[in-house]
């Protein structure tokens, strides 16, 4: 057993009346990348601050390096061995100082001898590829670069334990992968221990061990395979002919049914792959037929959702049945025709064209600054295009305001108004008649599940309910077209799935056209069609499936390499010329066109298992954007 770096036992913290963390027990071993996973408000930050010795706690014990953190003097003595990077992009850095000045400042602050500081700085700036930007002021860095600089400043005094609070929140997927890669290298190379939190479920696989937190408690902890074993099961996906009916039939039996574009994805607990597949097939066949059955082992997120929800109540998203979705044949609801927008010399959007049909969920992907928000502002009539144009339901975009619904980032509700006051406000703004206003108020309350909370201030709602209220406000005037700008940030996975169920019903049953902009790749999986934006242009426009197939064709399939000697296998792969290896906890992910060769290498090396993995949209996005960046850099 390795030495323990952090040991918490019955740890608790309250703010006034609110119990932020209660009865948390966990242990982090030396040299381990330990993850705290949970939605906003789960208590991650409180725990991490206490570990770093900057927050007092109320109950239980907390030992760091064997020192009791309850006593201030003792906590002070271990602080030199800890590095803390607080939440927020560049929050602990100075915007007006350059990259180098920031690092120097932290070195001086930590009293690192000059010679050591210089050597460490060069090494860290090299590893993080920030060396070329050393003279640039921090505030002009991108989100990902800010976080890398934050990491450098956290590491400059060579701490033995680093505490990183949501280092990847608000960072685009490419930079996120980069960050994890660098972190994994540093942890492995310097024997660091790291306590890292994240709100992204799909980052769970990056950790050697993890704890899943929810509402101040730890729901599960351990290695990935231990957590998977808590809710063993399989995932089956298929493409049914009548998606709405098939979904209803499955939802009646299984708690976790997701609609991903034309597919349905079901988590079947307790059954192995073949048994699960046939169980699903029986239900789907009763509601029409389906093709393209596929199955696999459950992912961490499936298990998390199962643990979070206890058992998620079957939703009634498909209840109203009938209307089969046929996005391909429906009439166009959103048309962008060579949209372009310049700000001075800067071209924010150039020559963007696409069509969204009625009942279709369309995803607009891209990193920060790719032009998504500018495009959506032009389509919603807030910003006049420099050239080109568009139509919403056949009407020019200059005159569409009363026909569209719009849900902006961060659910812009009036927090000081109650739930029903918010709804009435928007009903009034869209000029609904008195009778209609009352009817729509009831509809929104029911849709969002807020009937009992009508007189509660919006500020008092948890994020998931706020999000559904914001959606309700955007839908109050029955728009045929709905724009959603990064609609699920900060919402826990259960709330997120419930939200997508509502969107599914809107598109499939009510025939509303949805345009979603996002840089959360897990959301992209839900879309029928995707457009990828890069530097103001659309560089790919296809279904998620087609994009994955294209990537597989270009770069190969995705394999996971696990087992005791997995990490030692990385240099072997590099020597064999198989690039694109990334570290996920104790296993490796690699894109490879020649599966047979990989298998041969693995059996030669020994002690590793190779298993094919399904490509995610994140894989597609990251690879495509990297290729484009390389091209643009040339």
């Amino acid at each position, binding site marked *: 057993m390795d030495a323990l770096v952090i040991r918490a036992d019955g740890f608790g913290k309250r703010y006034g009346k609110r119990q932020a963390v209660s009865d948390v027990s966990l242990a982090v071993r030396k040299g381990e990348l330990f993850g705290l996973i949970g939605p906003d408000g789960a208590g991650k930050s409180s725990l991490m601050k206490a570990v770093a010795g900057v927050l007092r706690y109320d109950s239980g014990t907390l030992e760091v390096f064997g020192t009791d953190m309850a006593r201030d003097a003792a906590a002070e003595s271990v602080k030199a061995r800890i590095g803390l990077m607080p939440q927020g992009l560049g929050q602990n850095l100075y915007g007006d100082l350059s990259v180098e000045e920031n690092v120097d400042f932290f070195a001086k602050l930590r009293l690192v001898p000059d010679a050591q500081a210089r050597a460490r700085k060069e090494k860290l700036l090299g590893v993080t590829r920030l060396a070329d930007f050393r003279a640039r002021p921090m505030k002009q860095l991108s989100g990902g670069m800010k976080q890398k600089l934050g990491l450098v400043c956290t590491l400059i005094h060579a701490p033995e334990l680093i505490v990183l609070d949501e280092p990847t929140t608000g960072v685009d997927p490419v930079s996120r992968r980069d960050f994890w890669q660098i972190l994994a290298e540093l942890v492995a190379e310097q024997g660091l221990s790291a306590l890292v939190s994240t709100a992204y479920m799909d980052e769970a696989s990056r950790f050697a061990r993890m704890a899943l937190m929810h509402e101040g408690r730890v729901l599960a902890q351990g290695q990935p395979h231990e957590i998977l074993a808590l809710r063993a099961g399989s995932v089956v996906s298929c493409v049914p002919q009548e998606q709405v009916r098939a979904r209803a039939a499955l939802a009646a039996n299984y708690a976790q049914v997701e609609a991903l574009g034309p597919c349905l994805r079901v988590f079947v607990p307790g059954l192995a792959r073949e048994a699960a597949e046939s169980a699903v097939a029986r239900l789907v066949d009763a509601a029409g037929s389906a093709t393209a059955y596929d199955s696999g082992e459950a992912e961490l997120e499936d298990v998390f959702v199962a643990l979070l929800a206890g058992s998620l109540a079957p939703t009634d998203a498909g209840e109203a049945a009938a209307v089969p979705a046929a996005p391909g044949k429906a009439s166009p609801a959103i048309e962008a025709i060579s949209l372009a927008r310049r700000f001075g010399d800067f071209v924010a959007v150039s020559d963007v064209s696409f069509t969204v049909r009625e009942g279709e969920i369309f995803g607009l992907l891209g990193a920060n600054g790719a032009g998504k928000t500018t495009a959506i502002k032009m389509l*919603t009539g*807030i910003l006049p295009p420099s050239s080109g144009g568009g139509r919403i339901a056949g009407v020019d975009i200059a005159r569409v305001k*009363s026909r569209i619904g719009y849900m*902006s980032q961060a659910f812009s509700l009036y*927090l000081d*108004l109650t739930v029903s*006051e918010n709804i009435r406000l928007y009903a*009034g703004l869209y*000029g609904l008649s008195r009778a209609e206003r009352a009817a729509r108020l009831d509809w929104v309350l029911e849709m969002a599940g807020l009937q009992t909370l009508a007189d509660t201030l919006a500020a008092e709602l948890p994020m998931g309910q706020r999000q559904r209220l914001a959606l309700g406000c955007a839908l109050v005037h029955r728009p045929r077209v709905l*724009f959603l700008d990064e609609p699920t940030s900060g919402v826990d996975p259960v709330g997120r799935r419930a939200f997508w169920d509502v969107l599914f019903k809107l598109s499939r049953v009510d025939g509303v056209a949805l345009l979603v902009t996002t840089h959360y790749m897990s959301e992209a999986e839900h879309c029928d069609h995707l457009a990828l934006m890069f530097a103001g242009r659309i560089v790919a426009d296809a279904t998620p499936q087609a994009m994955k197939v294209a990537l597989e064709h270009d770069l190969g399939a995705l394999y996971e390499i696990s087992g005791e000697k997995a990490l030692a296998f990385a240099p072997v792969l590099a020597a064999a010329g198989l690039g694109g290896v990334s570290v996920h906890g104790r296993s490796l992910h690699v894109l490879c066109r020649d599966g047979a060769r990989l298998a041969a290498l693995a059996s030669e090396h020994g002690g590793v298992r190779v298993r094919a993995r399904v490509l995610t949209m994140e894989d597609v996005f990251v690879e495509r954007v990297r290729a484009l960046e390389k091209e643009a850099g040339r």
Partner: protein
Amino acid sequence: MNALSLWCLQLKVMFGKELRQLGRDRVLLAFIVYAFTVDIFLAASGVSLQLKLASTYVEDVDHSSASRELASRFLPPYFQLQGELASERAADAALSSGRAMLVLTVPAGFGEDLARGEPTHVQLQVDTSNAVLGFLAASYAEQIVARFGLETVDAGKTPLPVIENRTRVWFNPNQEDSWFMGISELLNVITIFSVLLPAAAAVREKERGTIEQLLVSPLTPLQILLPKVLSMTLVILAGTALALFGVLRPCFGVPMAGSVPAFFALTALYVFTSAGFGLLAATVARNLAQAGMLTILILAPMLFLSGAWTPPEAMPEWLAVFTHFSPLYYFINISFGLLLKGQTVAALWPSVLGMMALGMAAFAAGLLRFRRQFG
């Protein structure tokens, strides 16, 4: 629903929203109530520019009946005799320690000189750290000494012709500072809130991101800004009524000589137009803190140049010109005209026009910037 009734419905809904939001902000509400009641009460009762009970000491070296007679004329309400000082050094100490504001030194032989009808001297030392009070103390004391001199001379000889000055005090017959200070403070408070409240209401939407939600709804920029300004105007008028009828009239007897409805109508116009400055600030600021600092920046010259503290005639000539660019300058003329002098609106037209011109320009600029930023 036709276009006009839709427009009105949207305006009504937004108006209600603004009032509700303000009603939920307990801290801001408390601040408003405080400013329109306690603050004005304190300004009216506490701040005084009159000389009252100035602490006076006498260093009487002469010890004659004449010297005692002179000293005894330093009476309340202006002066308060505190006692005698034995030496010059004691006089210095009393002045520098702040115990004495005035020290009257009567030299030896004062009484005898007077009796002989020869010119003589007394010394008056005044602490003028506070320039206004010091000036008042010195001139009152001078008057007392001069009158004493005249009377002493009169007693012996035939009377000289004397010009008698009979003063009539208009508009504030008892020369109550509380009227001037109370009304000035009310006007200041109105000015501060008429800039601050709309700025805060507008920038809060920006901060929360709700502004985007409003922009995609079928509202014009005017429909977004107008309800804010209207609701804040209503609140400020309510505050003004509270200050006038709850504080200034019952506690200090401010007369309200002119038309009260006219005063409220013109206050509404003033608040509405000054809001333009607040909206301008809101288009520049990114958050509430910045908006707060910007409004201070806007308010400071508005208040200094208004003539509330210094009449324009007393300013350097180049600066006095700028008073015409402070809407408060006109509003002060109007308010004192209506509340104290009992003037009619007809007589105040030039001020009303000046105020409207400035305010409309500011409002238009605010709207234009908002439209350019979000249009």
